[in-house]
């Protein structure tokens, strides 16, 4: 008897942040210290929930409230890109959730006490789906930098949080998109937890003139790669 499971490839550790990262103080009491079990993939890991706009409505323009009134303050931008797997195949119908601070660097969140104004016209949450070629796109405002208490005079670079689902729960990912040329990037302990320079820089969006809409907003391109599947199905030899 054998079960054929197309599992997902394991990432190169240098391209992923370690759980224990002393420069990022919050990891101290939260990273596991016991050995982690390498979980072989089963149907639980290779299947995923199905998200549809019918049940999970899109919010593709974060700059306007639902009633069409009230426009967010700040520099309007267009963000778009493709969601692919490691083999370059588009991830279709993927749900992409984003959240971010407002233009002043303040989150619409009770836990954020930064002395910067809230924007009543900016909620800071979006949700879009990829098309058949893996493309997604949304409109927002450029988030501001904000201070945090990780170390003396610590500031987070401008960033937008991303949450993605692929075709298998093993592809589940939350990450952050950064902006090119941000002087805070070399100083940020979270961004710099990724030791591989190329992998780190892939978290930085590129300015994109094609996504830019004349007389209206700059465009930024941010592609995301989810894990690819093993090329060959692995045979299981359990006989018990």
């Amino acid at each position: 008897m054998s079960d054929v499971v197309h599992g997902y490839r394991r990432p190169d550790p240098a391209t992923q942040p370690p759980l224990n990262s002393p420069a990022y103080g919050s990891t101290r009491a939260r990273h596991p210290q016991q050995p982690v079990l390498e979980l072989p993939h089963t149907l639980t890991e290779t299947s995923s929930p199905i998200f549809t706009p019918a049940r999970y409505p899109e919010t593709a323009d974060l700059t306007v409230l639902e009633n069409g009134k009230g426009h967010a303050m700040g520099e309007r931008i267009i963000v778009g890109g493709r969601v692919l797997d490691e083999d370059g195949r588009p991830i279709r119908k993927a749900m992409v959730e984003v959240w971010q601070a407002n233009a002043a660097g303040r989150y619409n969140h009770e836990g954020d006490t930064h002395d910067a104004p809230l924007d009543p016209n900016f909620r800071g949450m979006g949700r879009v789906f990829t098309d058949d070629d893996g493309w997604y796109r949304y409109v927002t405002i450029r988030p501001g930098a904000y201070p945090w208490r990780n170390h003396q005079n610590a500031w987070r670079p401008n960033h937008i949080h991303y949450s993605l689902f692929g075709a298998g729960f093993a592809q589940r990912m939350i990450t952050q998109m950064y902006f090119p040329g941000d002087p805070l990037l070399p100083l940020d302990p979270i961004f710099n937890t990724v030791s591989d320079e190329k992998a780190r820089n892939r978290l930085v969006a590129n300015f994109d003139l094609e996504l830019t809409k004349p007389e209206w907003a700059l465009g930024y391109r941010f592609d995301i790669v989810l894990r690819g599947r093993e090329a060959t199905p692995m045979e299981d030899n359990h006989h018990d």
Partner: protein
Amino acid sequence: MTDATPELAPPGALAASAHQTAGPYWHLVDFPEWADTTRHFAGSLPEGAERITLTGTVTDGTGAPVTDAMIEIWHADPSGHYPEQDGDPAAFQGYGRCATDKQGRFRFVTLKPGPVPVGPHAKGNVMQAPHVALAVFARGLLQHLSTRLYFEGEPLNATDPVLKAVPETRRGTLIAKPAGNGGWNLDLRLQGEGETVWMAV
């Protein structure tokens, strides 16, 4: 179940994007109703469905409650099936998301999953015990933590290939206990004494 020999990426492959922490403000994507996977099925639950709650408290290495975590669950339906990606989007899906509260507690309402074949073409007796995949996202977690919840008293627990791979002394960190009224409880410890068995998925 595959042998856990990692397969190398073929030449020219892209590299998966790096994870980053969900941070402390992820609640902008918290929708409390998502903690109830049965919300779309009022009055029409799948046949044989047993409604359950899954609760637990998340603590860190100092024993303090983790009050800003996002917990996600993913599990099969009561007959052990997962939805197909191009299948019926109206079918039951065992996906939920829940924020921990000020005591570090989470609570899901869902349906008890059935036993799940290891792979899509399982012909033999390699069945996994009923289980729930758990993912924990939070400030201080640069990648989410993954584990599984099993149910105490399930006969298949004795032969489940994942449980069997866990040292017996730590297996209890994966097995939820009945909490009455269809409730099951499993506490999650990120670090330290009684640390949950976390899994590299």
